[in-house]
């Protein structure tokens, strides 16, 4: 997007395409839905709090209805009994939607290699950004949000468009 700034008192003009204008708007108004099931949820609270302040990146309006959310932030252990709930919430979100898998448990099951924990949420839903860590720092969440913004800005395909991975 090219913006011309001329300090001659005349109204400014912006030359752009509709796609990049929409992407620019989306990029700074990502509404997250936090699916926090474990200690990662505490770090999410830290990221939304005043110290790390995720609202600097336009992603502070937490929606507790999946129908109003753009980003599903899965923070914590997902077990087999919880898996259908997560899938349903993902299905209820409107396109375009992105998924952040936060922490070792959501990414791979973590150290819960046992009979009841789902070994990574990408077994049931497409994931755009993985955050490693147990739990990750709030910086990790900020980094993930910035990466989602990059995906929107560049028009890169979402994970849902590549799903299921063959």
């Amino acid at each position: 997007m090219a913006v011309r700034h001329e300090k001659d008192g005349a109204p400014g003009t912006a030359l752009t395409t509709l796609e990049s204008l929409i992407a620019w708007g989306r990029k700074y108004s990502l509404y997250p839905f936090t699916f926090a099931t474990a200690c990662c949820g505490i770090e999410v609270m830290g990221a939304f709090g005043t110290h790390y302040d995720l609202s600097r990146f336009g992603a502070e309006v937490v929606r507790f209805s999946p129908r109003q959310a753009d980003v599903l932030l899965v923070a914590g252990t997902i077990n087999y009994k919880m898996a259908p709930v997560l899938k349903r919430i993902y299905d209820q979100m409107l396109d375009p939607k992105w998924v952040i898998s936060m922490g070792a448990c959501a990414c791979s099951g973590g150290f819960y290699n046992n009979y009841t924990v789902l070994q990574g949420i990408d077994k049931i839903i497409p994931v755009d950004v993985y955050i490693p860590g147990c739990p990750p720092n709030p910086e990790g969440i900020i980094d993930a949000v910035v990466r989602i913004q990059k995906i929107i800005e560049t028009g890169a395909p979402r994970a849902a468009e590549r799903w299921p991975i063959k």
Partner: protein
Amino acid sequence: MSIVLDRLRGRFPADVVSTHSDFGDDTALVRRERIVEILAFLRDDPELLFDFAMDLTGVDYLGEEPRFEVVYHLYSLEKKRRVRIKVRLHEDDPVIDTAVPVWPGIDWYEREAWDMYGIVFRGHPNLKRILLYEAFEGHPLRKDYPKAKRQPTIGPEE
């Protein structure tokens, strides 16, 4: 011998297999046939009054025979005493009468023992899985449950 085990032995001489209270932990291994009578006696006897069923759990002694064990932990709020009742069950017939008529609160413990060990509590009013979901295959706390076994992921409709 403690008063609790003495009274239990005196009342059910044929059903008490063995007892010990080496460290003050009164424990009795009993036969399963009259378990409900034994538990009701422990609850109602004026000297004992075990009115609080604190816990029920299963144990899997894989390789031993009988393989399974059901353990009741009882407490008397009146007498401030505890007792542990154990019952061994065979692998091919892991069935025991329910203790829900004696203490209604033991309902969920029995469901948990069914869920995790596959021990059947005959006469239980609602014997179904309590922690896991209905489509789960097997009983995961059995020692021969495969460590790396993965369960089918169920959809939102199930």
